[in-house]
């Protein structure tokens, strides 16, 4: 069990190391890195905004619509989590399980329809 996920862990650690290695290579051979000349022009490290100076910071309070989608997503994600155990043993559970899941999804669909009608799914 753990052994199987050991591969996952290995991929995680190895992936991080590969990237760090690539960054290291880049840092060594790139023009402004270890071996290159330390050339630094002030304007080149400015924030890009189509060639003109930025106005204000980018860290502003952002639109609320994103938040509502995230909220909906959490709900449906929870639903799918219940859906999977049901789906794998669908044949075992038969009609009873099916009808129960219909009720479960149905209630959520009612919610989705409600949200749809009330304009949550509409981006201001």
């Amino acid at each position, binding site marked *: 069990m753990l*052994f*199987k996920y*050991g*591969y996952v*862990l*290995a*991929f*995680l650690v*190895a*992936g*991080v190391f*590969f*990237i*760090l290695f*690539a*960054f290291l*290579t*880049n840092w060594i*051979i*790139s*023009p*402004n*890195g270890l071996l*290159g000349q330390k050339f630094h022009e002030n304007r080149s*490290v*400015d*924030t*890009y*905004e*189509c060639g003109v100076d*930025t106005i204000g910071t*980018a*860290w502003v309070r*952002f639109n609320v619509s*994103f938040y509502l*989608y*995230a909220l909906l*997503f959490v709900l*449906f*994600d929870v639903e*799918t989590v219940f*859906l*999977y155990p049901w*789906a*794998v043993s*669908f*044949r*075992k559970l*038969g*009609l009873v399980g*099916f009808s129960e*899941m*219909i009720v479960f*999804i149905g209630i959520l*669909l009612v919610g*989705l329809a409600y949200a*749809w009608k009330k304009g949550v*799914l*509409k*981006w201001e």
Partner: protein
Amino acid sequence: MSGSLKLLKLINVILEHVYKFLGLTNPIPEVINAFITAAISFAVISVFVMFLVWMERKVSAHMQSRIGPNRVGPFGLLQTLADAIKLTTKENMEPQKRDKIPYFIAPIIAFVATFMGVVVIPLDKGVTIQNLNIGVLYIIAITSFTVIGILTAGWSSNNKFSLIGGFRSAAQIISYEIPLVLSLVPVIMITGTLDLQKIVEYQAHAGYWFVGPQIIGFLVFLTASTAESNRAPFDIPEAESELTGGFHTEYSGIKFAMFFLGEYISIIIGSSVAVSVFLGGWIAPAFMNFLPVPGFFWFVIKVLLVIYLIMAFRWTFPRLRVDQLMDFGWKILIPIAILNIFLTGLWILWFSKGV
């Protein structure tokens, strides 16, 4: 036993002998094995991604009646390698006002999250890097992690384009994850397993691919996985004509390359899952059964075909607007996917005895 499995067994035996010779005991050989596998996967995937970038260029070029790369190497095959070298040796430009640590780790998250998904893809009969018995869920869970990388990149660059791109990307990925999950449920209902290897085997036994009965599911999955990997027509996070580069506007050189690599790996994973679940994975097409080629070959062919389809999407369609994208996900794909589950349920109940 398939050819590729034999080969793997052979390698395993050789490695075991080596470990025995060195006097290593459990669990160290296993750890070494895991890391060797990861290294090989990384190398193979990098080469495959390079091939895909070349393929994308060629496909797009020919669709637009151009030739595409043809200077570096035969048919321009080494063009991507040249680009990779260029990206590696490029000066690493970082905006002064960035948020340093998140800026640094964002490409790592974005890459590693997709890279971890490779583990469970069934390459051939009985050949998977590590078969997990809940493989489908694993891939979905792991790839959903990408969004944090992209969001971090968008936020830490302190650039308005990046910020908008990052947020769009987050909203998009979370919205399309649900149809993605829902479109796989009917297949799981039929097969009764979350193991990708077993799903493919079920198709081999049943004699048909799920793309037939589950055409709706396949289309929904293809759409959603295209959206998950931020590909056109769902490429609003990096929408070139609006946001110049989206979340990777401020990334250059190797860091940009990592996002790029991650994006392509996520395409590979998406189409691999599509192939395994809907297109019969490593099963040879019925009329070509006699050919003595390993299943891995068929798997790659199918993956390339699906990727070709995704590329054709990109070079044909305009880009959706962000709210239309959300509408499409929530108002069309999700209801259809749920309807598909419902219909499949009825279908199974109708044909299965004893209920």
